């Protein structure tokens, strides 16, 4: 059970019109790991995530998530109960307050919960992501970008999912906020035993919290493995990415024992 991969993708093919985004893409995500997915702009990181979530049917190949086939054409309802997603800007429902946003998945998947317990659980998640309970009454339009992401994370965690998808969680945050978000993610991942699929451009996040890194390019996974292995991979983009001045800085902070 432990060795069984949580996500298994084989021979995935995605294309828009005549533009092929992915071809012969294979990827396995292990249980309990944080997998960082990197790649240049337009290499189809978000498309891959949408395909795994069953939001966009691929043109070929198969995707299996938590033992359920996503690519069979039917809505993967059981899967929805076991996964949480944080979209790029939080994707909060603008007509609902913060607390109501976090309650939505609880209402949908566990309607038998009493309103008081549901509220307690939602407030717990709001506190877990480092917000004050008083923030629960606010509307999404009143929140800053960092707070919106935290609320998005609280909503993604509401039903205690096994598998968490994060699309650029630290993009648009200031460095201090981004570092705090990374710490929060690592703590929650360890405490809740989550498996995390994390798309990022943020080298600090990669060096700080990812167990493994997958590099997307040329329509497939170019390299996957621990950072130290992927860094040495022989490819122009990988070399520029991991050996540029920013990567060196991120590596140095990591070496100094903090980020």
């Amino acid at each position, binding site marked *: 059970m432990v060795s069984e991969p949580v996500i298994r993708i084989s021979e995935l093919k995605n294309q828009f019109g005549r533009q092929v985004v992915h071809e012969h893409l294979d990827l396995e995500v292990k249980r309990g790991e944080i997998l960082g997915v990197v790649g240049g702009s337009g290499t189809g990181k978000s498309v891959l995530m949408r395909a795994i979530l069953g939001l966009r049917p691929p043109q070929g190949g198969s995707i299996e998530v938590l033992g359920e086939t996503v690519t069979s054409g039917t809505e993967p309802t059981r899967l929805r109960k076991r996964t949480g997603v944080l979209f790029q800007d939080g994707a909060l429902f603008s007509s609902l307050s913060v607390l109501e946003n976090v309650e939505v998945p609880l209402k949908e998947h566990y309607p038998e*919960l*009493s309103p008081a317990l549901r509220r307690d*659980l939602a407030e*717990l998640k709001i*506190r877990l992501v480092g917000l004050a309970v008083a923030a*629960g009454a606010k509307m999404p339009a009143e929140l800053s970008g960092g707070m919106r992401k935290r609320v998005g994370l609280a909503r993604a965690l509401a039903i*205690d999912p096994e598998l968490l998808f994060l699309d650029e969680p630290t993009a648009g945050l200031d460095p201090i906020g981004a570092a705090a978000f990374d710490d929060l993610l690592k703590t929650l991942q360890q405490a*809740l035993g989550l498996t995390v699929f994390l798309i990022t451009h943020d080298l600090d996040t990669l060096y700080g919290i990812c167990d493994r890194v997958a590099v997307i390019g040329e329509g497939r996974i170019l390299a996957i493995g621990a950072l130290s292995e992927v860094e040495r991979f022989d490819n122009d983009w990988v070399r520029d990415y991991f050996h540029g001045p920013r990567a060196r800085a991120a590596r140095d902070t990591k070496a100094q024992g903090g980020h």
Partner: protein
Amino acid sequence: MDPTGKMIEMPSAGGKLVLQGDWSIAHAARLARELASAPSDCAAIDATDIGVLDSAGALLLLNLAARSDLAQDRIALRSEHRDLFEVIARAVETEHAPEQARAPVWIRALDRIGVTCSSILRDGIGLVGFFGLTLVTLAAALPRPRRWRLTSTVHHMQQSGLDALPLVSLLSFLIGAVVAFLGATVLRDFGAELFVVDLTTYAFLREFGVLLTAILLAGRTASAFTAQIGTMQSREEIDAIRTLGQDPIELLVLPRLIALVIMLPLLSVVATLAGLLGGLAVATLSLGIPVEMYVNRVYETATLSHYLTGLSKAPVFAMVIALIGCLEGFKVTGTAQSVGERTTSAVVQSISTVIIINALAAVFFMEMGW
């Protein structure tokens, strides 16, 4: 797990609570029910038989401990559950939000009325201020033809004037027909069907021609102005214009205002003609009044003073619509939601202002005997 077995058990009174099963969100409702009837006098909790523990389970476990005032070290946990439990316990420790006391309904109703009234007042003052600002900018730009935005003005004349022509004429034609029908129904009883022509002529020359055009443009153009300027505002284009040393009023408001002041009177002329045509259609087809007689009757009834009283309102309406549309656009704040709210507000404000001004003008003209 045994679906019928209890998840909370106490073998002996005042002793140790023994927990079992999966303490996860899937069983949370059932756990909460058992928790409500659980004893509140236990000395310790043995949670080592729990299979799966998630954050919902940990929260309920903490609630259970709180019932007996147990400290956390009186709860025996499996080592793999310890981390999660501590994270949840730390999160729960931070104080609960105070319940906000809600005021009684009548106070909240009064509150809403007060807030709305003061916002109407503020909007009114803001509009007058904006009118003044626009006039000052206009006065500064007029003597310098190089600063006139001719292309932009002509563009808006086409968008808000020419493009609205089919809609305005069709709707006026239909309203003209309806007015004639209504008049005919009442006047037939008196054998005075011919006066249908007088009714239609009066109505369209004095009121409907201009009013209909203004209402249509308030819906069509004020909303467009708000959406255009609002989108620019939310994307910081207005700020960019300022930092480049240009005046957003001169650049965005004046062309729209001038375009509408020129086009609304022209459109209302067309609307009046279309309305009379609608009346004509009903009169000839349904009432048997010959075309010649209709036209002669219109000549007899229509006087220049009627028409001028009607047309004199057109530039005022045009200004109101353009100013409200532009001002609401400038009020947009960052979000896309705000663009929608402001657009709605622009349409509501401009239509109601147009109708209010029209009513005041009608009373004024009547008292003056024009």
